[in-house]
Structures are given as structure tokens and as C-alpha cells.
């Protein structure tokens, strides 16, 4: 029994790296068109998954399942889906699970479509300098919420899988680049897999007609295009080609970004076939129930800020920049982080039930005299305004100078915050900001997360 698609959202980071600048840095010649997306220095798969999941809206508070898919999990052993869960406002009895590998994006979608709940797909693609994986890769996230509801966006008609044990792409633990099978061999195998999966899904779902739209996610750009064409759907190239040109292949999140774009452009009654090609092929067939783009859906695309190749390598940790002469950051202390989870992950302060004053972070004792008379008060979804701000060339930052601002949340008090996805020129008193969950720093390779402010509407959602 499958569930219906109730909401979807994507997250694309603010930064872009043009392919010309990569080639210029490595060869002296600015060859290549388009750009890839680049996660900020304070972003990772977890933070981007949180951004996409939160963009789904409040309905996810009722979701019973969360599947987090990435090939770039910041921690092993520990389930990072628990961080996404804590930072996304989901209820305290939900089942949260990590999935990994390039096929995990499809896996999360399939699992959520069957059990209901949220599929959060997020990834960063890196590769050896100058490799196709680096140049044609991208960073981003997509989230889908499945459940029962009368106002659904789409229904799932079926899914199918053709698993093949094939060395098409693999990566050993601790390395930042994939090893790839020979192009023609991989193309040969995956073409066969896609053909079989299309047949199989027709059989299983009873829908053998060619879908209105098809999208194929696979590592190799040219192969993705030819596999899509082989399905024969009229529509899809106009989604897939710009995605590969302006975003890039986003690993486990890629199929989610393609599906979201297909849904944006769909009309009621359309069918969409989303295929993940790699290790065989997996496919999901949906029928759209109403015309897109959908209310509460995605914001208009804005061009991101371009960065240089050396900056990109620095942000990904490939170039070790001289740090500021500042003390080491405090190690992450598990007990305080656990006790203060509502604040650290949910950005929930407290509001005094007696006088209404809001404290950020929460306070047990109110200036009015009340003790333990509070309710949680989150400002994670609030728009704030900059009261006053400054550049900070003293604090250590991978993108100096750091920026800090005193943010006013209206009647709810103020907070001193770091600003991200912004340059000093973006700073103006009175500017509107939104909150964003970030990987603020690492201590001994252990990531620390908290919230920052960024100019409102920084990137498409």
C-alpha cells in the first residue's frame, strides 16, 4: 500500500563554481560551460537535508518515518538522520534511518512512499581535481513527504528494481573521490538495466504506456542524457539538461532534484518516471494529481554567488589555509548538547507564561519572578531583521572576514548570530534574514551544528 506525495522541497546552496574557472585554475584555459553548485564552507549533507526537510512545511511534524540518504555522511556509527530529525521539528516517536551509497536517494524515496514519512536526500560531490566527477558534480538536497491526504500532489503508481552487481562507481572509506568503471562498459550495462526496469515497472504497475516525463539520474552526464532518451518520453530533457548544466550531479540527492523539477512543470494527469541508474536501475512511477508548481512549493531560482576554484578546494578541506591565531574551539561535549537539544537543534528559546517575555536561549527563571513557567519558543522559522552588524576579521573563518549581526525577531527578543551566505556588501541594518542550520565548525574532525542567519531568499528552495 503506497502513500501519496503530500509535499516536496529542494535546497540548493548559495554558491556556484563555473566549469571554466576549474579548467582555468588547472590548465590556464577557461574551457567548459555552465556551473556546478557548491555547498558553503559551513554546510554538509546533514545541514542541507535539514534545509530541504524544513522547507516541506509544518505537516512533517506528524511524519512517522525519516529516511536520510547521502554518500557523504559526516559521521559513521552515529545515525545522522537523528540530527536531521532533531533539527526538523519532527515528533519524538518517529523512526529515523540513514541510507548510504549513490542508490540511497532512490531508496529513501521508495521507502517513504511505502511507509509514509519523509525522504531527505542530500549530497556533496567531490572528485580529484579536474575529474568529471568534480566538474560535473553538484551539491544540493531534496525532501519529499509521503502520507495519506486528500490534497496530495501525486500518487505512486509503482516501483521496480533491476539490481546488478557491477563495478560502475565505488569509493573507499575516507577518500573524497570516486573510482569509475570504464565509460563504455558502464554505459552498456546501465542501458540494459534501464531497458529492463522500464519493462518491469510497466508490468508491475499495469501502466505500460510511455510516461509523460522521464528523468534519469546517473553519474555520467552524457549517459544520463542517452538513457533518458531511450525511455522515449516526450518531456524530461528540458529538466535534465539544465540540471546537469547549472547544478550538476548531486549524488544521492540527484534523483530528488530531478523529480522535484519534473513535478514543478507537471500538469494533473501527467505521469513521471524517475530512474536511478547505477548498480543496475531502480525506477519510481508517479501520477500527478494537480497542476504544478504547487502551493507552498519552491521559491524562484536565483543565481548564486560565484566563487573561485581555490576557495572551493579550501572549503572542501583540500587546501589547508593558515588559521587565525585563536584558541582551539571547545570540543563538542555530549551531555550539554543532549540537555540543550531543543535549543541547539530546534532553536527553541522559552516564553514566560506569566509575562510573555521570550528568552533566547531558554531561561527557567524569568525577570518577572516566574520560575519554570515557560513554553518552548522556536525562532527557526522566523524572519528577523538586522539591528546592527559588523565584519569580523579576527575570528577564524574559512571565508574571512566572518560576519556577525544582532538580529531582532520582532516581539520575541534578539540574538547575536553569525551571518552566512553573505558578503560584507550584503550587510545593511534593517535587512531581513532567515535562520539556517549549519555545521559551524569541526573540532578534531567532529562536526558541530548550530544556527546562523542569512539574507532572506538566498537560494531556491
Amino acid at each position: 500500500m503506497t502513500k501519496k506525495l503530500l509535499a516536496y522541497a529542494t535546497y540548493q546552496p548559495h554558491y556556484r563554481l563555473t566549469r571554466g574557472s576549474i579548467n582555468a585554475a588547472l590548465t590556464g584555459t577557461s574551457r567548459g560551460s555552465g556551473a556546478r553548485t557548491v555547498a558553503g564552507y559551513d554546510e554538509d549533507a546533514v545541514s542541507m537535508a535539514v534545509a530541504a526537510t524544513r522547507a516541506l512545511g509544518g505537516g512533517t511534524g506528524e511524519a512517522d518515518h525519516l529516511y536520510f540518504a547521502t554518500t557523504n555522511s559526516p559521521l559513521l556509527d552515529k545515525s545522522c538522520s537523528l540530527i536531521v530529525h532533531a533539527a526538523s521539528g519532527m515528533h519524538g516517536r518517529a523512526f529515523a534511518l540513514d541510507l548510504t551509497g549513490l542508490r540511497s536517494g532512490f531508496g529513501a524515496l521508495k521507502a517513504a512512499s511505502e511507509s509514509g514519512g519523509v525522504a531527505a536526500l542530500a549530497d556533496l560531490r567531490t572528485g580529484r581535481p579536474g575529474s568529471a566527477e568534480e566538474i560535473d558534480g553538484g551539491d544540493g538536497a531534496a525532501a519529499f513527504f509521503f502520507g495519506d491526504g486528500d490534497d496530495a500532489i501525486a500518487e505512486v503508481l509503482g516501483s521496480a528494481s533491476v539490481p546488478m552487481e557491477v563495478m560502475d562507481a565505488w569509493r573507499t572509506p575516507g577518500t573524497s573521490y570516486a573510482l569509475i568503471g570504464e565509460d563504455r562498459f558502464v554505459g552498456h550495462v546501465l542501458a540494459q538495466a534501464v531497458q529492463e526496469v522500464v519493462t518491469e515497472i510497466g508490468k508491475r504497475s499495469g501502466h505500460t504506456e510511455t510516461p509523460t516525463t522521464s528523468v534519469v539520474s546517473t553519474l555520467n552526464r552524457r549517459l544520463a542524457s542517452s538513457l533518458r532518451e531511450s525511455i522515449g518520453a516526450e518531456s524530461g530533457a528540458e529538466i535534465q539538461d539544465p540540471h546537469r548544466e547549472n547544478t550538476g550531479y548531486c549524488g544521492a540527492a540527484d534523483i530528488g532534484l530531478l523529480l522535484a523539477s519534473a513535478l514543478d512543470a507537471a500538469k494533473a494527469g501527467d505521469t513521471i518516471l524517475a530512474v536511478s541508474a547505477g548498480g543496475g536501475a531502480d525506477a519510481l512511477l508517479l501520477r500527478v494529481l494537480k497542476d504544478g508548481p504547487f502551493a507552498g512549493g519552491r521559491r524562484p531560482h536565483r543565481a548564486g554567488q560565484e566563487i573561485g576554484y581555490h576557495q572551493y578546494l579550501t572549503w572542501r578541506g583540500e587546501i589547508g589555509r593558515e588559521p587565525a591565531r585563536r584558541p582551539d574551539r571547545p570540543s563538542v561535549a555530549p551531555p550539554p548538547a543532549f540537555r540543550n537539544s531543543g535549543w541547539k537543534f530546534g532553536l527553541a528559546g522559552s516564553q514566560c507564561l506569566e509575562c510573555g517575555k521570550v528568552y533566547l536561549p531558554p531561561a527557567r527563571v524569568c525577570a518577572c519572578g516566574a520560575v519554570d513557567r515557560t513554553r518552548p519558543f522556536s525562532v527557526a522559522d522566523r524572519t528577523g531583521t538586522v539591528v546592527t552588524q559588523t565584519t569580523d576579521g579576527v575570528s577564524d573563518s574559512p571565508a574571512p572576514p566572518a560576519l556577525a549581526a544582532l538580529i531582532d525577531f520582532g516581539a520575541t527578543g534578539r540574538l547575536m548570530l553569525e551571518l552566512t551566505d553573505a558578503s560584507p556588501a550584503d550587510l545593511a541594518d534593517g535587512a531581513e534574514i532567515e535562520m539556517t542550520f549549519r555545521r559551524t565548525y569541526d573540532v578534531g574532525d567532529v562536526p558541530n551544528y548550530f544556527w546562523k542567519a542569512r539574507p532572506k531568499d538566498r537560494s531556491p528552495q
Partner: protein
Amino acid sequence: MTSSMRDRIAIVGMGCTRFGELWDKSADDLLIEAALDAIASVPGLRKNDVDAYWYSTVASGHAGLPLAKALKVERPVTRVENFCASGSDAFRNAAFAVAAGVYDVAMAVGVEKIKDSGYSGLTLNAPPGDNTATEVSNPAAYAMLPAAYSRAYGVHPDDVRTALTHIAWRNHANGARNPERAQYASIVPKEKIEKAPRIAGDLSVFDCSGVSDGAAAAIIVRAEDAHHYTDKPIYLKGMSLYAGMSDGAATAGVAHASFPEVVQCAASAYADAGITNPREQLSMAEVHDCFTPTELILMEDLGFSERGRAWRDVLDGDFDLDGTLAVNPDGGLKSFGHPVGASGLRMIFELWLQLRGEAGRRQLASPRLGLAHNMGGLPGEFISFVGIFGNELS
């Protein structure tokens, strides 16, 4: 509710080291120098005459033991830590103990060895926490002040900048008259200050206090006993310490154009000292010029200037050495740097010199009442101390 400290205790001896990058001296060396100089400044006083010690340091030692060990004393020693106001608070608690009659002679001594860390600026090791503290350096936190001040009072940013430059210039010029002790004892031309590269917002290093090592100490006795020790005691006229609830930045209003903790603290100290018009009644003030915009705002919060007028009074030279109310005649934190545990006592040391007529090239004409303002924290969450001293009993 409270009883006044006016004329209840006196300082009868002080010591103060040179402040600076003192690579050849340890925290113990500095402590020994300041403490023994303070004792030696009181004719006939011996180490064993000091009944109890209040020892302030933020990061150069733990507990009272470093003092007992360095000075080889067997006495009550209390370590005091209250951010950048630690030195003042050591003095405050020693004063209370003497005023209470528990001890006849107490010493407050502050020391900080900052430079050994190798870090830029002042840093603090925080206890294990949830790692949600916003990473904002001290210069950046204070760099938010000038724009907030401009906006709150409709003052053109260029006028604020010119006033900040004047503060930096003047405090350095005062420090140039203090070569025995100041970290920086040279005049810095205004043009150089204006052109210096910015490190945070509109602040350059010339808008920031230096970073230095140093120590200072005071010998405290009951006011009625003061003349048994010296012919020229200085008397505590009033003091106040105030810790804010740390939601100053969280409260709407003129946040970042005023420090509410300082306003409260000053009001309490003035009431203690019977001061109704600080601008007229005070001869001088040592204030916490950790950054130039801090000093600008303090001129209003301490009641020296009307709201929105401090920039003008600064530019008019009112707070210069030859102005109507000399501010930071010794050169302030700008010239001395800020060895955190020592700074509060270093401020009192300048009052000690000035009120006794021993300030040499900086000497003010017959000062009678002076103020020391010392504070710690960041805009929105301050500890503030104000002490007022005079050279006569009222």
C-alpha cells in the same frame, strides 16, 4: 538596604608594574613586583603586617595558592575572577573586609600574563557547553557600537569616526607621558589612526586596547587609621558593582548605543559618594576604553555628557588632559593594554598618583575626586564597576 562605603576605607600604598610584552617575566614575577612595591610604598610596613589578600586573575592562576606560594605568606588568600573587572572586584572585597573590621590591613593584587598564550587578543577558555555560542571576536562585538550610536542619536557616521580617532589619539598622547609603565608610550598621529587597516567593522588596531602583561596592588586600611601609614592616603568615596542579566542585547531599545549595566552601576556609586553632577564634581576619570566606541558611550552612561552629545564633547577636547574632565590621563587600556586581572587596580593606581600629586608630566591641577570605571563582558552582558576616590575626608 545598603550602607555607604564613603570614607570608611583608605588606600595607603600601591604598586604597579610596567605593562607590556614582558617576555622575561612570569606571572609570579609580576605579582611579586607589584605586591612588594605596594608594601614598600608604605613606610615601615612589612609583609607580615598584611592580614589578608584578594588576588585577581582570570587565567594566570587558580585558587589563592599561586599568591601564597610566590610571596611565601601564610594568610587568607581569595582568588577573584569577574572577567575584565576582576581587579576592581578584588579591591572591592578587600575593602569590605577592612570596613567590616575583620582585618586591619588587606591587599588587593591583580595579575595577568596574557602574552604567553600566543593568541591574538584576549581569549577565555569556556567550560564544556552545548557549542551554541556565536563566534564573535571582541573587536567585532564592539565594532557594532558605532553604527548603533549613529542611528540612535542621528549622528553622522563620519562624526562618530572622527570622535573615535580623537579618543585613540588622546589616550595614546596621554600614554606618551607615561613611559615608565605604559605598553605604548608614543604619540600616534590622527592621520595614521584614520588610515589603519580595519580588523572588524570600522575598527582598526588603534581602536582596540593593546594586549599586555602586568600587575598592580593596593594596601587597604580603615580610613581612621590611614594617617598611621601615610601622610597622603586616598579615600574610597563610593563604589558599586553590577552584573546584568545578560539579556541586554535581547532587549529592544537603545541596545548597543548605551550599556544599561553601567548606567545602573554609576547611579549607585554616585549615590554612595554623594555625587549629583559627575561632570562638575569629578576631577578625572579612568574608564574602561577596551575599544574607542566603548569610551565614547561611557561618557554618556557615566553622566559626563548628555545623550547623543559625547562625540561633540570628545571633539571639543573636554576629556583631554587639559580639558574640563580628564579621562584616562595615564593613557588608558589603549596605552597600557589589558592584562585582565590587573587592569582595575591599574586604573586605581593612576588615581592614587594624581590625587597625591605624583603623576609627573601628567599631573592634573589639584584634583580632588576621581572615578575608576572597569567592566567585563560584551555589549548586552556586562559586569560593571565604578569606584570614586578622593584625597580628603568629607
